[in-house]
């Protein structure tokens, strides 16, 4: 067996045959996808405790109908088919506005703070005719937590229905006719259709929720992130160990510095592909069990394999070079951000990219080589149809950048691996890269 492959095999075994690897394999998805998983698990778990809301109706035309609408809702919408309450009751209490409205609102705020009320709702006196300039036409919802807005969202419909009804009467129109004419239908989010080249059958066009549109790309990007992190980052520590324990000196009597680094990189690639295989099998098993195979973008596997290879070589070369510049664990810890920050940055910008996967920002960011593996993968896994030239150009950019980092990394590795004493600074390392 070739010496490079022997180094790769040792590197692979050293990383994979540890309890830490197995633990990381299981824990990483939980840690990094914790919020998403929690969201999925908890999305149907709502607080069913009664919500008391005070209504301060300055218009005098809304409160009564609002109370009636709430009663209707409490009677018809809060129980599931088995009669189990799944939503809270909304209990409105109508208050007459006092002379000192500010003091009255302060008192109501205190009641909210004392948990006597969930919130209070103020209706401006001029809501019926918002077209009149200078009038107070506000519908204001006061609560402690503006993020929890189920009640506020619900209020919008009955209040506006009531206002439309009164306006219709004022215009001499039958409110029922108006309701029929202005009836609105919600939109559903659907995936695109495609035709199977082999069978000619149409597929896709299924209803997709926002959650599903986020979950699959996020999961794929997360797997790539985990693969990169677990494949590349250990190279920093292992190179530092080989340097500080003088193992490198023994190995360099057998193999060239570039051969040693290449072997280590291939070991890292093998670790990542092991992770990819593991998660692919798990994804297939879980999606088959839950009947959601269509949601898992298995068609991306070839791309994932190719981009993992390039990504590992790119970040692994940097990790090995940084490791070769360190003498001990403390120095390695201090220099770890040089490797980890470029891997982490996509994690901070994934959301705006997923919101508009075909936008300018998403396109530009996914064509920056260090971010291409994560961000292009995210876009490809999203329901959007990314133009073919973009992954092609992105992949070529990654390949070129990878060649540059492997070349530069090898030069730093060669110079740093036998150097003892003070760790070289960035300037020295750049001199090693570009010097003669």
């Amino acid at each position, binding site marked *: 067996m070739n*010496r490079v492959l*022997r180094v790769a095999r040792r590197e692979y075994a050293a990383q994979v045959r540890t309890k830490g690897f197995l633990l990381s394999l299981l824990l990483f998805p939980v840690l990094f996808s914790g919020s998403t998983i929690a969201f999925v698990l908890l999305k149907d778990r709502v607080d069913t405790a009664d919500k008391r809301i005070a209504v301060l109706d300055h218009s005098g035309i809304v409160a009564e109908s609002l109370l009636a609408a709430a009663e209707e809702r409490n009677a018809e919408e809060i129980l599931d088919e088995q009669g189990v309450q799944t939503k809270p009751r909304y209990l409105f209490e109508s208050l007459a506005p006092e002379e000192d409205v500010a003091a009255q609102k302060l008192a109501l705020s205190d009641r909210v703070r004392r948990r006597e009320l969930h919130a209070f709702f103020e209706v401006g006196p001029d809501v019926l005719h918002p077209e009149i300039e200078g009038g107070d036409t506000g519908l204001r919802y006061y609560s402690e937590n503006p993020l929890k807005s189920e009640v506020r969202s619900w209020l919008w419909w009955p209040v506006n229905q009531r206002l439309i009804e009164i306006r219709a009467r004022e215009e001499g129109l039958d409110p029922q006719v108006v309701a029929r004419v202005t009836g609105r239908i919600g939109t559903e989010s659907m995936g695109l259709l495609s035709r199977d080249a082999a069978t000619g059958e149409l597929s896709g066009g299924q209803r997709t929720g926002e959650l599903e549109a986020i979950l699959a790309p996020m999961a794929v990007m997360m797997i790539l992130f985990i693969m990169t992190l677990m494949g590349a980052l250990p190279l920093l520590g292992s190179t530092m160990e*080989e340097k500080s*324990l003088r*193992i490198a*000196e*023994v190995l360099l*009597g*057998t193999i060239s510095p570039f051969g040693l680094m290449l072997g280590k990189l291939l070991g890292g690639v093998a670790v990542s592909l092991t992770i990819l295989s593991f998660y692919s099998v798990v994804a297939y098993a879980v999606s088959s069990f839950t009947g959601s195979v269509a949601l898992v973008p298995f068609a991306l596997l070839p791309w994932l394999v190719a981009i993992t290879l390039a990504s590992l070589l790119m970040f692994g070369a940097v990790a090995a070079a940084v490791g070769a510049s360190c003498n001990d664990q403390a120095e390695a810890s201090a220099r770890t951000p040089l490797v980890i920050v470029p891997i982490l940055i996509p994690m901070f910008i994934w959301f705006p990219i997923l919101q508009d996967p075909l936008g300018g920002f998403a396109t530009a960011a996914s064509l920056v080589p260090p971010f291409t593996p994560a961000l292009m993968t995210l876009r490809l896994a999203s329901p959007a149809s990314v133009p073919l030239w973009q992954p092609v150009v992105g992949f070529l950019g990654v390949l070129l950048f990878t060649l540059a980092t492997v070349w530069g990394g090898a030069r730093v590795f060669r110079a740093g691996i036998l150097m003892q004493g003070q760790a070289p600074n960035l300037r020295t390392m750049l001199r090693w890269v570009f010097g003669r």
Partner: protein
Amino acid sequence: MTAVEIESVTKTFAGHRAVDDLSLRVPSGCTYGFIGPNGSGKTTTLRMIMRILLPDRGRLRVLGEERLAAATERVGYLPEERGLYRKMKVRPLLRFFGEMKSGRDVRGEVDAWLERFELTAWADKKVEALSKGMSQKVQFISAVVSRPELLILDEPFTGLDPVNVDALREAVLELRAGGSTVIFSTHDMAAAERMCDFIFMIYRGRKVLDGTLREIQDRYGSDTVRLKIEGGAGALRGLAGVAEVRNHGRFQELHLAPGADAQALLGAILGRTGVRHFELGKPSLHDIFVRIAGPEAAAAAPEPEEAPA
């Protein structure tokens, strides 16, 4: 047949000339000792022979090969500072190093060497569980398990107890008897005297000694007196014709000044104290080392322990 040929080799690190215009020929099948004070260029020379470092100038030929790494699989190397993966188990570690070198299955050799050094019980333990002496023996096995034609040992006996020193020494001599060429650097002058066919001393990057022990000693002549006296070393103070007195406790060693008469010296000593032993001889390697490198360098080189009979 020459195992290693070094021609006018120079190596500089950040303005410091570690090896300066060095030329050396190591014949095949011999034991060649590299001596010199710390920082004199021994390890740099060994690393250049191993092609870990490349010379700035000059040529190196190892086992007849001038091409970089051409002879790699035929050369075994024990570095000065031991390099072992702490988390690896002993047997897989030795297989890794042996197979990296030779490219073939070395399981049989690994087990034989482990048995020879009484390490079989530790074969499935991690390196981090081994004592320093055991680690050193494992490191030695990693250098020899591929049955190299040329074995390079940088300070092989440092830190070992006498039993392990003997075990290692026997193994080295056995390898040499089997046809391997052995180059080793050492601060142990007595070991160098006992084991080496040739001795090379490097000082401040330059070759200062090269030859057999006899050739080297002949260059200095019989200018050393070893004696045991009844009085203490104080009785030797101020003797005419003596360049240096070295007190080893149980015996003393006098370095005669050029042209000094040993018989006259004996008479002068007898005039001061009783003499039990008086021997005129050639300087020891340790003595020669100290004369070249100075007493500071001698601190790193162990004193000879053998007293005259």
